């Protein structure tokens, strides 16, 4: 290995001074005397593999340039990350996920304020749920708005709020219109909306894991013709809850306990917070219960 012979420890100090313009790239006269540290570093350097014997030292100019570039880029990328993580609370929810998770008709009001910290956000749902939830299903605000869940072949499915007296056509419009090619002949667009109902316009193939009627409306609060009468979670007795598939006396009691503890259910999804009610059981129940 010629490299080892050239840079190796055979001529340790001599090599450092003349053959290598690298480790000691300053004229010998400029260095008063090799300090202990320098000698130690040179010995380490000699013992490295050939590929690591080279120029290690930065000069002042490149060091300054490197440090400034790193600082500027760090500020830019960090600032960009902060900017992208910018979150804020928007007024009334207009789009929900495809779950009637928030059927609460409780008027959240137009907060407008930006919730910057996680503290205020985390305090919100838990703290607010208790005192206000009992009035959740009450038609207190229903005199001015109806809340409907519009699902299926519309541009923006989800839970929407509309003025009382709105019709199905208004709901379709508010959900961004129907997707092209949707057959609407069997949907009575002139029907007036009831608070808490779900309007299903077609269905994405297989999205619900089973055959779904192409176009149908299911008035939520008036029972369903094809299903057994749904159980109202906030008013059901223990016996009624036990009629649900997979719910025995113990689980029914826990559901009642949860309701007693939290006042009421403000969404069907909260059933999952009941101890012992797992995801699969919830999936079986979620279409059989109402608030």
């Amino acid at each position, binding site marked *: 290995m010629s*490299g*080892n*012979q*050239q840079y*190796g*420890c055979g001529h340790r100090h001599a090599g450092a001074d003349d053959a290598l313009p690298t480790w000691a790239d*300053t004229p010998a006269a*400029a*260095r008063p005397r090799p300090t202990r*540290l320098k000698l130690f570093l040179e010995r380490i350097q000699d013992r490295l*593999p050939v*590929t*690591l014997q*080279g*120029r*290690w*030292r*930065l*000069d*002042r100019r490149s*060091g300054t340039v*490197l*440090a400034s570039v*790193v*600082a500027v*880029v*760090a*500020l830019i*990328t*960090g600032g960009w990350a902060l900017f*992208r*993580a910018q*979150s804020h*609370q*928007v*007024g*009334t929810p207009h*789009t929900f996920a*495809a*779950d009637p*998770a*928030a059927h*609460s008709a409780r008027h959240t009001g137009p907060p407008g304020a930006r*919730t*910057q910290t*996680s503290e205020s*956000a*985390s305090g*919100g*749902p838990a703290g*607010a749920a208790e005192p206000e939830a009992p009035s959740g299903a009450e038609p207190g605000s229903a005199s001015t708005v109806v809340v409907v869940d519009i699902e299926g072949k519309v541009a923006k*499915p989800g839970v929407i709020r509309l003025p009382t007296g709105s019709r199905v056509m208004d709901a379709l419009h508010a959900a961004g219109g129907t997707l092209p090619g949707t057959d609407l002949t069997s949907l009575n667009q002139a029907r007036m909306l009831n608070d808490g109902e779900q309007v299903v316009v077609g269905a994405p193939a297989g*999205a619900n894991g*089973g055959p779904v009627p192409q176009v149908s409306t299911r008035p939520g609060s008036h029972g369903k013709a094809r299903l057994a009468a749904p159980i109202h979670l906030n008013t059901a007795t223990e016996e009624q809850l036990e009629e649900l598939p997979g719910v025995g006396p113990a689980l029914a009691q826990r559901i009642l306990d949860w309701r007693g503890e939290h006042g009421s259910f403000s969404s069907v*999804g909260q059933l999952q*917070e009941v101890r012992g009610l797992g*995801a*699969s059981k*919830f*999936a079986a129940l979620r279409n059989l219960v109402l608030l």
Partner: protein
Amino acid sequence: MKRRADPPDLRLLPPVAAGWAATWLGLALPPAPTLVAAGGLALCGLYGMAQARRRAADHPLGVEPLAVTACTTLLVAAGLALSAALHVAAGSHGPVPGLAAQSAIVGTALTVTGDPRRIAPTTGPPSSGAPPRPTRRLTLIMVPVRITDVTTSDGTHYEVGDSATVMARIHAPADEQIWLDLLPSQHLLVTGKLVPPRDAGRDAALLIADRAPQVTGGPSLIQSAAGRLRADLREAASGLPAEEAGVLPALAVGDTSHEPPDLADALKRTGLSYLVVVSGENLIFASAALIPLARWAGLRGRAVTGAGFLLVIGFTVLARPGPPMVRATVMSLLGCAAAISGRRFRALSTIAAAVLVLLLIDPWLALTYGFALSVAATAGLLIAAPGWCDRLLDRGVPLWIAGPAATTAAAEVFCEPLLVTFSGSLPLIAVPANVLAVPAAPVATVLGIGAMAADEVWPPLGHAVAWVAQWPVRWICLVARTGARMPGAAVAWPSGLGGCLSLLAAYVGAYALIRRARRARRAKQSHINHRVSRGQIGLDKTGVGSV
């Protein structure tokens, strides 16, 4: 014996190493202490630079390079710590971490950012001597996403921008395909439970979903084209036996969606698993095949470069553009470019610069094993492989063995201290397995990409090419399975930090021994000083005895 130009340029190594450490610490700590520490480092660095400048003014020749290097290192570390602190602050910002802490049920609007990954249910034996492992009867599908909207169950609605992972629990078989068919850049509505992420990283939360998502926005044009081509390759390979049909897409474009799990395990145990994750290697194989083809088609000069450029872009899209892909591509392109042409002279500098740039863009990389492994492997290729290859050639080993053996051994040796922390064993079989399997990898990659292109044009042709491609794939599978079964394929070694440190200590010991032995041999050969020679041999023997 060999051409030797300037000594290697290693000036970037200390700042980048310190910057990496600073990023790592900055991500592990809360932002406030990191910012204070970064400020302190920056002040020290600036003061040192000012001192060096003043002294340089006093003595025009008396620059203080060591101090300058140290100060630059401090300043770079401070910059990267600042970036890490800002990223951590961004991650813990907003309502999502708070909602995750209370396991809230939320409705979310998401954008998919990566490929869905399927985790099969574990059906372990019911506690028959085996450690009690929780059995999971549900299939899980993990999808990396970015949350754009959150609605809590009491109706509050936030616009956010947090990275997260969706863990979809599959209850209905029909749902599984919906989740698996998701493409990056699709927009979804998902309802589920937000919980804190399992391990530290960029994710602000894990979203557990039990129902199929609702797709509200299609994938971008590029992603849907890439998804279509990947589907073409799977289709072309569908006529092959199950194993080959699963491995061919993995080898060609890193599509591991159908890879059999036991083979994945065998590949891991024989140190071949890097072949089936997407990396720059596939790109190099593909361009090695393309360039002669382009010349044959009559392209010259710039046109060939242009074709290569298009290939790089196309392949990056196919294999999913994203931090892992970019990182792998950058690292292996650099490594191979250095190994092929300029040997080692500027390469280490370039790789250090690449690490710096990648860490600045995405500090979370500093925490990922994948990033550390790529850097370690590339460093191995640059630092150790050239010398080892030369030594093997000097001993008369033919190049086609010496090349793969030296590169895989170097990469393996440099990666092993990281790998051993969770594997708890040293795969001794890796080097021979690689020497055997590596020649088949480019053939399989190129034929796989060819099958994909052919299937797009005319499916029967695609099937024909895939049929040819199955033979190199079979060879790699055979090597992996045989290697994994061989006795002594792996040696047990402590795992965790202790394993890593003891392995590093073993390396240092072995290196010192080898170096001493080599010096002794050289001294003997040169016949300069018999007395010194005899002394060296004596030292050598005592050295062996003492270690």
